[in-house]
């Protein structure tokens, strides 16, 4: 089955069909009566003609060439590939949620609005913020929205010289990209040997041109920024605001909150921390929470409640505007709320505790065979710097590819940029000790192979649907569609 190698276009045969519509019950018409001829298509659309059975088999075969959390362990650092509960999928597909139109009268969607309002409150409690917008479509979109809020805050105060955003050198690539997209310049601050923000180098860049600082805590090395209070005070005292990148929030639920650390704006990745599926790249959801002083700038509409009904409030004169059509990824919000109810206050905390336990456990199993650049207690993820044995030909990329042969998804590799040959491992709480043991054993075996039989590692993977792909060819002479 994994040998299947057809494109849907290659299955097409004239006269086949996979659909049937009811017969048209109004009069057949000549399209030229409705549309000027020059705007009518004169050639038939070049789409395939296939039967329903072929469509199902084709995509089922393609799915067999994919790997998901339901297939096996997925320790992708900073991506929180936890199990995606099935009941959440059912809840989002309920007729009363999946089949409502965004412009229906509010009285016909009170259940949807109530769910959004309750989710808003739950996320505020989880993050220690005062109000959320559920509009942003993904984490990066949340960052952009959050930075727009920071910009609006300074602009309203006439403080227009604040054009710079501070980003640590360990940050996710989206941080500087979002800052640039929001019209800011980025200033990078170095990390210390211990892997956290260097307070002295932070002090050096602080000025009245600083709009804010973006930080992930725990950071991308999986380390808690212990000096967070001091960092917050320093940034606030120069007039800047603090932005919390929620990519790593799975380490802290019920233990500490960005709002209590001093952050003013927060985004959460519902597709990471709160269990909604990644869907092969989307749709995600990246709600943004703010402290009181920033509520007036939130994108419209804001879901609110009066004595007897829920409603969409557009009356925010200082709003940054709209960042998205309609109100956000509602379907993802339903899944998230279902997860929060399932886990509850006790379960969410337990999830973070076990996520951290699992991460430190795997670290303890691998430290003899792999280089551990920073020897400390980690949070939900940790970073290795390649093999401990130096001067081997085997690199991190080879190790990642060799893992595929053993049926594991590799960790995040070559990130963060500040660690050479980085392997960033995030097990999440939804994995058993047995899985973690097996994974560690395989990595130990690969470390051994790297010495005894490096070729087998360097040429990996050997038994995947396809093997290493020529990326240079793909980029030099791009073939971006089927030309047959």
């Amino acid at each position, binding site marked *: 089955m994994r040998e299947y190698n057809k494109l849907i276009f290659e299955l097409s045969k004239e006269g086949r069909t996979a659909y049937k519509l009811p017969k048209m019950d109004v009069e057949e018409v000549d399209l030229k009566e409705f549309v000027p001829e020059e705007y009518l298509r004169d050639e038939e659309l070049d789409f395939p003609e296939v039967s329903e059975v072929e469509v199902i088999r084709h995509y089922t075969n393609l799915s067999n060439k994919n790997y998901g959390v339901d297939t096996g362990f997925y320790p992708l650092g900073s991506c929180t590939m936890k199990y995606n509960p099935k009941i959440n999928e059912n809840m989002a597909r309920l007729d009363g949620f999946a089949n409502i139109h965004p412009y229906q009268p509010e009285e016909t969607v009170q259940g949807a609005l109530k769910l959004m309002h309750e989710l808003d409150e739950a996320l505020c409690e989880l993050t220690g913020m005062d109000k959320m917008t559920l509009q942003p479509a993904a984490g990066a979109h949340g960052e952009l929205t959050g930075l727009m809020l920071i910009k609006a805050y300074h602009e309203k105060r006439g403080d227009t010289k604040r054009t710079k955003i501070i980003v640590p050198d360990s940050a996710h690539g989206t941080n500087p990209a979002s800052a640039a997209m929001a019209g800011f310049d980025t200033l990078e601050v170095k990390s210390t040997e211990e892997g956290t923000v260097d307070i002295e180098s932070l002090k050096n860049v602080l000025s009245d041109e600083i709009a804010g600082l973006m930080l992930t805590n725990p950071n991308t090395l999986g380390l808690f920024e212990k000096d967070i209070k001091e960092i917050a005070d320093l940034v606030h005292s120069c007039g800047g605001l603090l932005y919390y990148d929620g990519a790593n929030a799975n380490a802290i639920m019920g233990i500490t909150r960005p709002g209590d650390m001093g952050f003013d704006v927060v985004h959460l990745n519902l597709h990471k921390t709160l269990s909604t599926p990644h869907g092969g790249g989307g749709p995600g959801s990246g709600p943004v929470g703010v402290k009181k002083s920033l509520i007036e700038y939130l994108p419209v509409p804001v879901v609110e409640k009066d004595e007897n009904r829920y409603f969409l409030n557009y009356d925010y004169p200082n709003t940054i505007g709209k960042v998205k059509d309609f109100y956000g990824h509602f379907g993802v919000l339903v899944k998230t709320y279902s997860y929060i109810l399932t886990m509850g206050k006790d379960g969410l905390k337990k999830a973070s505790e076990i996520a951290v336990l699992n991460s430190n456990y795997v670290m303890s199993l691998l430290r003899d065979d792999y280089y551990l650049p920073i020897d400390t207690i980690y949070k939900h993820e940790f970073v290795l710097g390649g093999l401990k044995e130096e001067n081997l030909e085997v690199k991190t990329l080879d190790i990642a590819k060799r893992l595929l042969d053993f049926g594991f998804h590799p960790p995040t590799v070559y990130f963060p940029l500040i660690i050479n040959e980085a392997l960033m491992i995030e097990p999440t709480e939804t994995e058993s000790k047995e899985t973690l043991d097996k994974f560690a054993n395989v990595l130990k075996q690969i470390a051994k192979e790297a010495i005894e039989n490096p070729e087998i590692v360097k040429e990996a993977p050997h038994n995947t649907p396809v093997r290493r792909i020529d990326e*240079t060819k793909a*980029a*030099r002479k791009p073939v971006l569609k089927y030309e047959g």
Partner: protein
Amino acid sequence: MKILEDLLYTNDHEWLKVEEDKAYIGITDYAQDALGDIVYVELPEVDDEFEMEEAFAVVESVKAAADIYIPVDGRVLEINEDLEDDPSLVNEDPYESWMIAVELEDKSQLDELMNSGEYEKFLEEEE
């Protein structure tokens, strides 16, 4: 690493070949080697004007992209369109694969650049 004698060099690993009021600019053997397989070269348009230290081109490999900075002020006279069709030329022969030719506005700016001996020493120190 190959270094040619009659060229001028920058700290960012670009080379300049001066022909009277005109200079051809490309990247050095060291630079192409560091970038790996080059998959795309984005060039400016003829008549675009740049100031010293401005990025005038982008060179992309599969997993990296590097801005190429102009070491002098100048207006673009020619661009090497061959590179747009076959970027691997930069890997094969970086010193033949000039990217742009510019009209030199201020020749004294050339004094700041390294000759081949100085660049060789610079590379040794970089290692």
